[in-house]
């Protein structure tokens, strides 16, 4: 049975196949997952690397590996984030067996809110992880990429947790939201509109019933406005509602 998110927390996500994969009759190689339990509430997205034969499974297993890793990690008081990341690598490596890790390479971005309220955001590989604070200010986990699109690291490539970017915060403030998106979306976002993008997702889509939201989001992502867009597209958002909403 699904555990509901912690009080005040909401999340949703969506993933669609890109035009290239549709034309080539290949599956969606992105994945996302939202999860709640004794460990808290979390969202994960992953982009399986297109050149790898087991990319789709690699992405799906990245989502499950984060859930696997959060369970023991959240139980240990003051366990460092690096331990969580090591666990993600470990569980992912087990889950992609018997395939080789390098054949299953996938990015991994996640947000976890522990029962204590502490927030951890982590990113390995390209895509975007961004916090829109209640005052509208924006924090992006990784700066602009150094190279070009689709040149990235991920599970199955990175050999050390130093390749991750991680931040922790005491809490996710009321009305603050965190966006995760794969590069099919992230690379096409207008840089100075990212905060508005997150706000629109929360206000316009967050209030919809799940089935209607899924349909509406899939339609938006399939009809993405950037010309010639090819990539699979995945996003997930988590936010904390205003305190007064929690009492309703």
């Amino acid at each position: 049975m699904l555990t509901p998110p912690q009080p005040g927390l909401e999340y949703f996500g969506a993933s669609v196949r890109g035009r290239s994969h549709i034309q080539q009759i290949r599956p969606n190689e992105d994945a996302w997952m939202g999860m709640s339990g004794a460990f808290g509430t979390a969202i994960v997205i992953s982009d399986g690397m297109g050149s790898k034969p087991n990319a789709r499974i690699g992405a799906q297993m990245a989502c499950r590996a984060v859930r696997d890793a959060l369970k023991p990690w959240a139980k240990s008081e003051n366990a460092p984030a690096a331990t969580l990341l090591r666990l993600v690598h470990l569980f992912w490596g087990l889950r992609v067996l018997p395939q080789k890790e390098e054949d299953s390479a996938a990015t991994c971005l996640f947000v976890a809110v522990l029962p204590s309220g502490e927030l951890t955001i982590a990113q390995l590989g390209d895509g975007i992880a961004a916090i829109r604070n209640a005052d509208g200010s924006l924090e992006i986990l990784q700066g602009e990429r150094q190279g070009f699109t689709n040149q990235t690291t991920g599970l199955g490539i990175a050999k050390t947790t130093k390749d991750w970017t991680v931040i922790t915060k005491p809490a996710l403030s009321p009305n603050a939201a965190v966006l995760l998106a794969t590069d099919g979306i992230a690379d096409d976002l207008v840089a100075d509109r990212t905060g508005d993008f997150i706000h629109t997702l929360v206000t316009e889509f967050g209030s919809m019933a799940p089935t209607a939201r899924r349909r509406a989001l899939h339609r938006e992502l399939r009809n993405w406005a950037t010309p010639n867009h090819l990539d699979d597209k995945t996003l997930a958002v988590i936010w904390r509602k205003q305190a007064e909403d929690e009492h309703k």
Partner: protein
Amino acid sequence: MSKLKDFSIATARMMPVIILADVSGSMAAYGKLAALNRAIAEMIAIFASEQDAGAEIHVAVITFGGDGANFHQTLQPASQIQWTDMEAKGPTPMGAAFELATRFLENKTEIPSRSYHPNLILISDGQPTDERGRISDNWKKPLEQLLNSDRASKALRFAMGIGPDADEETLKAFLIGQHPEIPVFRADETRIEQFFRWVTVTVSSRSRSVNPNSVSPIDFDNLEELLDV
């Protein structure tokens, strides 16, 4: 009506093609520069007519000849380029071309990070010189900087030596460290267009690929077969 349309960039991701063309005085001989002009114009026309490309191919041409390196053609979508022929003059300051190419490729305003990795094409018929025309190895340091830079080093590189005087050492050094290995294409004035057909097929194939950054150059031995299709 879309609620997210306003947040996405309204232009396609670019695939840059940057040509470093030797326009030293010797290129005027035996119709070499005339053949090069024709070949580049034909390549641009083919890129402009690509219908099903996922990436929009942009082309720039840096010429080196006379007293330095300059943009003969600034980076623009192939479909918008009105090609004008290059003219030959003076010595072969190839080092200046490497410097200009590195600066340009590292500039995220000119080539945004959302672009696919660039194609960089070197064409020369002689030995590099300084600006006064003396044989010089002043190209080595700029090339080393290009090959070790964050972004320029990620370009897919091609090289063509025209005629017997083209300097093999320089052209090979330009291609070093690529996987799979890409050989220097040796040409006389009659094979220049063939080289550009090979580059055109490779770039077009990349632009149509599900993962444009993972495509290797087309096997040159299969080129004629591909062109017949």
